[in-house]
């Protein structure tokens, strides 16, 4: 699965200023709404579901990366977005470090395979130091979109 299969340019956020876990999650879900990927009356429910998932254990998996996510019955296909913070956000990460790169996923409850393949793609790309560095340095949503496109074209990893 490629980034283009579940991410759209309209929901990408560069230079997010949110400074808490809830704030950054809320801003990203709001961006999904702005891009027409979720319904307005589902926003609160999706934010709450993602925060509830975080209570089971942070999705901040180290290396300055977090993948907040949830299953939600209001979506009929996997939707996601990416955000970059220049300052970093305390996210209760496994390694205790701040998070700079966020990949948020909302998937239909009956499609665990799609969620797994999206996670596979995200984590495979994030294993590449160059991809991570360029992403952290991104100044605009267009920069981020370009990096995701390049990743989709296998320009960062050979696996």
């Amino acid at each position, binding site marked *: 699965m490629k980034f283009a299969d579940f991410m759209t340019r309209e929901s990408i956020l560069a230079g997010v200023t949110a400074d808490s876990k809830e704030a950054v999650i809320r801003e990203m879900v709001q961006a999904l709404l702005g891009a027409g990927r979720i319904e307005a009356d589902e926003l609160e429910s999706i934010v709450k579901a993602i925060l509830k998932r975080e209570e*089971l*254990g942070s*999705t901040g*998996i*180290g*290396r300055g*990366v977090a*993948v907040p*996510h949830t299953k939600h019955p209001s979506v009929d296909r996997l939707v996601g977005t990416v955000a970059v913070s220049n300052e970093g956000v305390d996210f209760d990460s*496994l390694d205790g470090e701040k998070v700079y790169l966020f990949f948020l996923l909302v998937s239909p409850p009956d499609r*665990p*395979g799609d*969620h*797994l*393949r999206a*996670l*596979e793609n995200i*984590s*495979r790309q*994030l*294993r590449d130091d160059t991809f991570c560095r360029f992403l952290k340095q991104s100044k605009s949503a267009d920069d981020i979109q370009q990096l995701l496109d390049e990743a989709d074209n296998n320009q960062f990893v050979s696996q």
Partner: protein
Amino acid sequence: MNSRITTSRTVIVTNPDGWHLRAASVFAQVADRFESKVEIVVHTKEEPRRACGTSVLQMVSLGIPEGSEVLVEATGSDAEDALRALTALIQMDFDDPHEIQNKKRTSDAPDPETSAGR
């Protein structure tokens, strides 16, 4: 180290969500409790793909779905204990790690294949 051994066992992932993020996180936390080095290996059509058992990123990047066969390999002085705990965790669908202790007592799983150290 006179007790440095490598032991491994193949387990089938029965969790409907596969080796997802929380599963990998819990597995990594349990693997980290042991001195032994832990790796997981999945066989694909092309070649075996390995991931460090304490790296969430590496494990999730293998994209392991339900029904997959995963070889868990531990090397070190407490390799057998590590393997027993980690395979039990997979068989419990990566449930809360503190339940492992109860599971271990009732487990009648065959002994893992043991080989000489590297």
